[in-house]
């Protein structure tokens, strides 16, 4: 090993470091790749949270950058983590599939004042299964029974009654649920609480619950993987995972007694009803929604921001971004298996966004 080669290695790392220290000195290829950068330096907004929102955001924020030059860096660290980061004020906005609870609200208010919940999209939670049967049908109480452990075999009379003309196998039901805190779990357990008093009293609705039965898997990718690999299994995850991985989904009997498969339209129809009696803070849960075509396991996802933005420039950029996401950005929803916000909700969102103040 000669001395010169060590010096070269040193020089290379110093050069790298120098380029890194150069602040906004982006490589020449960056300017062409990122389209038109806003003159006078690029504004960058940082957000963190829901993994469910990530694919939609990656598309919407890219479009927004092409249009305005504003870079929005969103990282999918999970809903709970996104809320924590907002509270620690390390990010400009958080994204979550469940609204802040009282404890989280208190912590956030202590850190940066009141927060605003802005519903930005809706999604259906698909109940996937692995059985050599197509079009398995379940209703709420039966699904709750399975997750409570009171229904343990696929040929249980309660399951069989919902699937007339189908010979149900006698295999045991392998229940799969999330092991990590999740907005998907919040929607799923909210639904089970809505349809089963026993579930409500014994387990309840939350991002993390004490599961009576089943095995845990991390993330929707974990649950969908587990369901694919375990014959006789059942699990829940966002619609996109079911569609992309070709996993069979349970047809649910909704509040109106009609059979509906999970779909973007089913979630939209369910959400449309929610718009009519939206609470003032927009923290609405619309599981088990009325209507013939409503899919019962669906919910909002929110962007959560502080009501008062101290940084004038960033605050204004954030307001513009939110306006874009809840209006124009909704066009990107459907191809990615998200349900676009109904017009009524968009209007409520714009009203909520208009309450955000900037400056000292």
């Amino acid at each position, binding site marked *: *090993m000669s*001395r010169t080669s*060590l010096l070269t*290695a040193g020089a290379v*790392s*110093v050069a*790298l*470091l120098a*380029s*890194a*220290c*150069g*602040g*906004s000195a*982006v*490589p020449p*290829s*960056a300017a062409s*790749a*990122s389209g038109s950068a806003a003159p006078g330096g*690029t504004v*960058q907004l*940082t957000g*963190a949270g829901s*993994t469910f929102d*990530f*694919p939609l955001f*990656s*598309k919407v*924020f*890219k479009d927004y950058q092409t249009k305005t030059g504003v*870079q929005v*860096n*969103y*990282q*999918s*660290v999970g809903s709970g983590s996104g809320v924590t980061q907002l509270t*620690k*004020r*390390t*990010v400009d906005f958080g994204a979550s599939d469940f609204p802040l609870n009282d404890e989280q609200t208190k912590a956030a208010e202590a850190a940066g004042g009141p927060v605003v919940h802005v519903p930005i999209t809706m999604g259906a939670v698909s109940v996937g299964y692995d059985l050599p049967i197509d079009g398995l049908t379940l209703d709420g109480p039966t699904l709750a029974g399975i997750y409570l452990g009171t229904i343990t075999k696929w040929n249980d009379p309660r399951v069989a009654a919902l699937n007339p003309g189908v010979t149900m196998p006698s295999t045991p039901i392998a229940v799969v649920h999330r092991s990590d805190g999740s907005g998907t779990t919040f929607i799923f357990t909210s639904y089970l609480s809505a349809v089963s008093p026993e579930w409500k009293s014994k387990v309840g609705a939350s991002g993390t619950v004490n599961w009576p039965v089943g095995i845990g898997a991390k*993330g*929707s*990718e974990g649950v*969908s993987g587990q369901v694919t690999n375990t014959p006789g299994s059942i699990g829940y995850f*966002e619609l*996109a*995972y079911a*569609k*992309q*991985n070709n996993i069979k989904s349970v047809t649910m009997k909704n509040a109106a007694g009609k059979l509906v498969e999970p779909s973007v339209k089913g979630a939209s129809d369910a959400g449309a009803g929610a718009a009519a009696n939206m609470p003032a803070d927009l923290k609405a849960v619309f599981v088990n929604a009325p209507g013939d075509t409503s899919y019962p396991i669906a919910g909002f996802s929110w962007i959560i921001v502080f009501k008062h933005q101290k940084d004038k420039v960033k605050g204004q950029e954030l307001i513009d971004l939110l306006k874009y996401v809840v209006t124009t950005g909704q066009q990107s929803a459907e*191809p*990615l298996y998200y349900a676009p916000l109904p017009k009524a909700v968009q209007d409520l969102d714009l009203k909520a966004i208009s309450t955000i103040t900037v400056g000292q």
Partner: protein
Amino acid sequence: MASPALAVRPALALGRRRVVDRAMSVLFVAATVAAVTPLLLVVGYIAVQGAHGLSIALVTQLPAPVGEPGGGMGNAFVGSAILIAVASAIALPVGILSGVYLSEFGGGRFGDVLRFFTDVLTGVPSIVVGIVAYTILVVPLRSFSALSGGFALSIIMIPTVARTTEEALKRVPLTIREASLALGVHEWTTILRVVIPTGLAGIVTGAMLGIARISGETAPLLFTAFGSAFWQQGLLKPIAAVPLQIFQYAISPYTDWHEQAWAAALILMLLVLGLNVAIRAVTRTGFRTVR
């Protein structure tokens, strides 16, 4: 006195020894194969899965959103290089100097304590290091940053560099030091001009081992470097990194993202393998210099 029985015995013993020798050889070869197989399986599987996702765009372009073809993670490769540079800028001086101290002056009680702490640091889970960097850099600065990511990586790198440097310098023969001192050279000049140049190959090995150690780290970057969809924005802004990007793509439901994750994993693995091969080359030349 030589009875036939006695004459036969050594032959028998030799035969048994040969059998035992064979058996043990087979056993050791089998154990070696068992140890190497996982590596070959991993390398082979990643190569098969990652090969068809390889493209120039992967290392030059920015990520494309879901549903749009193309795109890459060029920003993540640049980001990883910057993170490694920052980590090296912190860890190499600290690591090498403490290695020199441990080897040359570390005989006393303080040296033992220092050595013990260095060893403990090696065993600290990398996620814990990430939390430390998050607490002392990210939260006070109110921003995720390349700096905090590089800092976290440097903490993981320091013990590797320090201990390898120490071992390398300890191997420098006492006779060479004595020759220098006998010529009336100061101790510090001896260390700087004689001991360190002689052990340089070992020090470089330590630096490379340190870099190889940190280039695949994901956990300490989750809440420090944070990740980014854009080209780097400076040391105080969030930055992309290859392991983070692989992690994020791997847990998504989309096959084109999975493909990119595999391809990036392949590149990352080849880089680390290449670094290890380079380490071998350096060590070999190093031995020649010493002789």
